[in-house]
C-alpha cells in the first residue's frame, strides 16, 4: 500500500539520530495517538547545517520524517518554513489517505524545531501552525 519511495525511506531512513549540540529541537505528536516526531537542528548563520530526527510511529511517520529532514537540510530557516506537508507527500510519491496526517506532523515538527530556535535565540517571532491540531496533536514546546 506504500509507494516504493516510502518503503525506501522507511527501511533506510535518512538523518536518524540526535544532535548533541542542537540549537533547535521540536517535538510534535503524542504517544497516545501512536506517533511522535522529534526533530533536532543545528542552525548556523540562518542555515540548517544539520538535521536529525527520532520518530515513534508507523511506516509513513518514519518515511515522512526522513523525507522532511532531507528537504530542509542545508536550507535557510525561511526556506524551511515554506515546506508544506504536500511537498513531503509529493517527494514520497504519495501516501495513502489515512496516512496524510503523518506528513502534517512532519511539517509541524520542522516548524516546532524552528520555533524553538527563535525562542532560544531571542527572536520574537511566532510561527503560525496549520491550526489542524487534530492532525498533529502538537504540544507547542
Amino acid at each position, binding site marked *: 500500500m*506504500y509507494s516504493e519511495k516510502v*518503503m525506501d525511506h*522507511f*527501511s533506510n*531512513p535518512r538523518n*536518524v539520530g*540526535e544532535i548533541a549540540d542542537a540549537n533547535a529541537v521540536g*517535538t510534535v505528536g503524542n*504517544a*497516545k*495517538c*501512536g*506517533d*511522535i*516526531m*522529534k526533530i533536532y537542528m543545528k542552525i548556523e548563520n540562518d542555515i540548517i547545517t544539520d538535521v536529525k530526527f*527520532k*520518530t*515513534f*510511529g*508507523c*511506516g*509513513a*511517520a*518514519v518515511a515522512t520524517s526522513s523525507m522532511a529532514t532531507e528537504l530542509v537540510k542545508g536550507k535557510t530557516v525561511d526556506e524551511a518554513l515554506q515546506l508544506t506537508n504536500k511537498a513531503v507527500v509529493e517527494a514520497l510519491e504519495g501516501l495513502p489517505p*489515512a*496516512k496524510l496526517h503523518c506528513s502534517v506532523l512532519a511539517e509541524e515538527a520542522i516548524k516546532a524545531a524552528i520555533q524553538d530556535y527563535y525562542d532560544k535565540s531571542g527572536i520574537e517571532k511566532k510561527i503560525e501552525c496549520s491550526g489542524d491540531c487534530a492532525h498533529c496533536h502538537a504540544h507547542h514546546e
Partner: protein
Amino acid sequence: MIYLDNAATTKMKDSVIEAMLPYFSETFGNASSTYTSAGQAARKALTEARGKVASAIGAEEKEIFFTSGGSEADNWAIKGVALKNKDKGNHIITTTVEHHAVLHTCEFLEKQGFKVTYVPVDEFGMVNPKDIENAITDETILVSVMFANNEIGTINPIKEIGAICREKGVCFHTDAVQAAGAVPIDVKEMNIDLLSLSAHKFHGPKGVGALYIRRGVKLENLLHGGAQELGRRATTENVAGIVGMAQALAEAVDGMAEKTKKLVKLRDRIIDGILETVPYTRLNGHRTERLPNNTSFCFRYIEGESLLLSLDMMGYVVSSGSACTSGSLDPSHVLLGIGLPHEIAHGSLRASLSEFTTEEEIDSFINAVGPIVQRLRDMSPLYEGVEGKE
C-alpha cells in the same frame, strides 16, 4: 515467506481442495433441484457435510445452517434473536473484546432501540461468568460471548457461562470462529444455543461458515427468498465451499489432542523466546488458557505497523493491533479492553501458527524480532534514556 498470520486466515489443505473440485465440475447441480440426479448428488453432498460439521461440535445434523462466513453467522445469531424476541425484552449482553462482527452488530441494534451491556474482561482478556450473571435482567434476550479471542487468544469459560444462561432461560450465542478446530467444542455439554463458525480459519475455503442453531431456538431469518437451509436462509447453496468446510473441520478435529500438543510446544517456544530475548516486552492474553496457535505481544516504545512492515520485508507475515493497522485513530479495542494504555497497545504484534508451522520457522522468527525491535527503538524518541535503566 514464513506465514504466522493464521488467525487472519489459513492456507487451504490440498485434501480440502480435492474434496471440493468435483463440485465445480461434474457435480455442479443445484442442490434444491431434487428431482434431477444432478441436484440429488449435490444435495447428498450437503447432507453429508452438514453431518460432518455437526459431529465436530457435538450437534445434530439439522442444527447446522451454512452461511457465507463467520460475520454472517454472528449477524444472523444476534439480529435474528433480537428481532424475534423484541416483545420479550430489549436487552443484550456481550463483552468489550468481541470481534467487530459482533460489536458492530450490537451497535447497530442499539440504534434500533435495543440496550446492550458490554461486560468488561480481566487483564488477561477473560470474561468472569459472575459478571454475565449479574448483568442479566428480566429484559435480557441474548448473551453473546466469544469462545476464544482472535487477537490475544484467551479462551473463555464458555461452559460456565452457558450453564448460567440456561438456568436463567436466556439464549446464549458464542462466536467460535477462532476456537473451532483448535479446541474441543461440545455444544450440548457447554449449553450453547447458537455458535458461529468460519471455514477459512481451519484450512477451509473463504466465504463459507455456519451457524449452529440448537433445536427449538427461535430467531428471525436474515436472508429472505428461496427455501434453502431448511427454509431459514435463502440463496442457492455454495456446495463446493460447504463440502470444503466440512472436510477441513473433520480433518481439524481428527487427532486434535496430538496436534494441540505440538502447537502448544511451538507457541510456548515463541512466547518464551521473545520474552527472554526482547526487553520491555509483555505477553498479551492468558498464559495457559489460550488458543494453541496464538501469541500476542506488546513491545514498548515502538509502534506496531512499523514492526509489521519491517518483519514483512524480511518475509515474516504477522499482524498488529496498532491504530495504523486498525484503520482508526485508536489501537485495538481488545488491547484497550484488557486495560493497556494507548501507547503500549500501539506496539502490539500477533504471531499465529498453524499445523504447517515448523520449529525452524519459529526459531528464525524469534531471532528476527529482537534486532528489528531494537532498530525501531533506537529510532524512537520514547526510548531515549531508557536503555540500561531496567
